[in-house]
C-alpha cells in the first residue's frame, strides 16, 4: 500500500511540475473552470434555498382563499356571501380579507394595502413593511400621504415598521385599520376582497373546494397546496432560465476544455514518447494524466463551490440578484437560510469533475499505447 501511495505521490510530483511549467495555461484553465462551477453552484444553491424558504414560510397560508369572478375578472365579495359558505359542511373558520394595491407614482411600484386580522391599528395610523421604510425613508412616527383613487390626499402616521427578517413576505405591506381602508379605497360596506377559510379535516380540503364551486358557481377557490405548488415550480423555472442564459457559456467552456483535454499538443506527445522511451509503463502515463485532470477539476469544483456558497449566503447573491429582480423597485433584500441539498452538490461534483477527467484520459490512452518511436516522430 505504502509503495502504491509513494508511486502516486511521485506521479503527482511530476504532474505538478509539468503544470507549473505551463503556468499561464494551467492557471487560465483553473480560473475559467472555477468561474463556471461558481456560477452553476450559485444558481443552484440560491434557487434551492429560496424554494425551501418559500415552502416553509407559506405552509401557514389560509387553507383555501375564495375569490369571486365576474366575466373572468376578480370582483368584490358581496354581503351575504360569507353566510352562504358557512353552510358548506367541513368549513371550520371563515374570514373576509380586505386588501388591495396602491400604485406609488414616486417609486413607480405597487404597495399591498391590507387590513390585518390579528391586530388592531388605530385610525390614521399605518404599519409599513421594511422596503417602504428603506425606499421612502419612513420611520416610526413619520407621516406619509397617499393620494386615493378619488383624488383626495390621505395622511397616515407610521406606528410601526415590520421586521426586516421577514422581508420575503412583508416588504411592500401597508397595514391599516378597516375604517381607513374602506375610506381610502371607497370600499362599499360589507364587501370584502376575498375570503380566507380553514377546513376542519385536512383530507377534506379538495372536497370542500368542489362543494364551494357547486354552491357558489361564480367563485374560484385557491387551495394552499396549489399556492405551494406554484412557488415550487416558479423556482424551477427561474433556475432553468438562468441555466438557459448560461448555456452558451457552458458550451464555450465545454469546447475549451475538450480542446485542452482531448487534443494533445505536439509537445505533450513528445513528452509521452520520451517517458515511454525511458521506461514508463502505459499505466503510469495514464495515471499521471489522470492526476492532472482530476486535480485541476477537483480544485476548480472545491474553489468554485466555496466561492458560490459565500456569494449566495454571505453576500446575498449580489452578482445575479439584478437579473432576478427585474424592474421591481421594492424587491426585498433578504438573507436566505442556507439549505444545501447533498444530491445537488453531488450532481454538480459528478458533472464538473468526471467529464474533464475522462476527456483527458482518452487521447492519452491512445498516445500511450502506441510505440514511443512513432509517437515522437509523428
Amino acid at each position, binding site marked *: 500500500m505504502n509503495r502504491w501511495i509513494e508511486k502516486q505521490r511521485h506521479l503527482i510530483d511530476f504532474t505538478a511540475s509539468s503544470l507549473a511549467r505551463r503556468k499561464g495555461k494551467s492557471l487560465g484553465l483553473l480560473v475559467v473552470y472555477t468561474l463556471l462551477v461558481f456560477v452553476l453552484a450559485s444558481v443552484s444553491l440560491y434557487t434551492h434555498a429560496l424554494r425551501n424558504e418559500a415552502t416553509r414560510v407559506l405552509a*401557514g397560508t389560509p387553507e383555501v382563499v375564495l375569490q369571486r369572478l365576474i366575466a373572468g375578472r376578480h370582483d368584490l365579495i358581496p354581503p351575504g356571501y360569507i353566510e352562504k359558505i358557512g353552510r358548506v359542511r367541513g368549513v371550520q373558520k371563515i*374570514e373576509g380579507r380586505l386588501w388591495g394595491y396602491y400604485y406609488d407614482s414616486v417609486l413607480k411600484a405597487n404597495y399591498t394595502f391590507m387590513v390585518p386580522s390579528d391586530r388592531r391599528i388605530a385610525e390614521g395610523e399605518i404599519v409599513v413593511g421594511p422596503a417602504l421604510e428603506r425606499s421612502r425613508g419612513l420611520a416610526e412616527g413619520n407621516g406619509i400621504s397617499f393620494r386615493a383613487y378619488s383624488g383626495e390626499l390621505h395622511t397616515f402616521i407610521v406606528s410601526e415598521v415590520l421586521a426586516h427578517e421577514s422581508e420575503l413576505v*412583508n416588504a411592500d405591506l401597508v397595514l391599516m385599520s378597516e375604517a381607513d381602508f374602506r375610506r381610502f379605497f371607497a370600499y362599499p360596506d360589507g364587501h370584502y376582497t376575498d375570503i380566507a377559510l380553514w377546513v376542519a379535516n385536512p383530507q377534506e380540503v379538495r372536497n370542500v373546494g368542489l362543494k364551494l364551486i357547486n354552491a357558489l358557481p361564480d367563485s374560484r377557490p385557491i387551495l394552499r397546496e396549489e399556492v405551494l405548488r406554484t*412557488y415550487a415550480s416558479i423556482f424551477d423555472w427561474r433556475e432553468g432560465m438562468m441555466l438557459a442564459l448560461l448555456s452558451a457559456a457552458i458550451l464555450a467552456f465545454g469546447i475549451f476544455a475538450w480542446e485542452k483535454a482531448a487534443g494533445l499538443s505536439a509537445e505533450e506527445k513528445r513528452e509521452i514518447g520520451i517517458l515511454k522511451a525511458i521506461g514508463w509503463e502505459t499505466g503510469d502515463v495514464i495515471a499521471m494524466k489522470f492526476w492532472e485532470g482530476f486535480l485541476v477539476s477537483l480544485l476548480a469544483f472545491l474553489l468554485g463551490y466555496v466561492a458560490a456558497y459565500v456569494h449566495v449566503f454571505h453576500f446575498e447573491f449580489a452578482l445575479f440578484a439584478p437579473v432576478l429582480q427585474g424592474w*421591481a423597485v421594492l424587491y*426585498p433584500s433578504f438573507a436566505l437560510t442556507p439549505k444545501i441539498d447533498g444530491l445537488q452538490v453531488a450532481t454538480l461534483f459528478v458533472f464538473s469533475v468526471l467529464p474533464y477527467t475522462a476527456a483527458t484520459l482518452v487521447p492519452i490512452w491512445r498516445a500511450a499505447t502506441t510505440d514511443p518511436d512513432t509517437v515522437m516522430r509523428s
Partner: protein
Amino acid sequence: MSRPSDRVLAFTLFAAALFAATFVDAGIRRDAHEPALQRTERLVEDLRLSDLVLFTEARYTRHLSQADLHSAFQDHPVALEHFPSGSLLPPPALLLDRHEPLDREAAPSD
C-alpha cells in the same frame, strides 16, 4: 514540504476543508435563522398572507397564486402581457392545469 505533490495535496486539502466548512457554516446559520423563520411563518399565518414579495410591478406577479387567467391581459381586450417580471415567472400551474388543456382541445370555429 518541498515536494510539489505535498504542496498540491496540502492545497487540495485546504480547499476540501473550506468545502466542509460550508456545511458547518450552513448548520450554524440555519440555527441562527430559525427563530426569524418561525416569526415569518407566524406573520404569514397571522396576516393571512398567500404570496412572496418577489416582484411588485404587476399584480399578477406580486400575488402570483391569486392571479386569475385574465389578470395578465387586463389592460384592454386582446392585450399582450408586457411586464418584464412576466418573463421570469411562469403562469402558475393551477391556471395551466385547468385552462390550458381546455384551450388546446377546443377546436377553432370556422
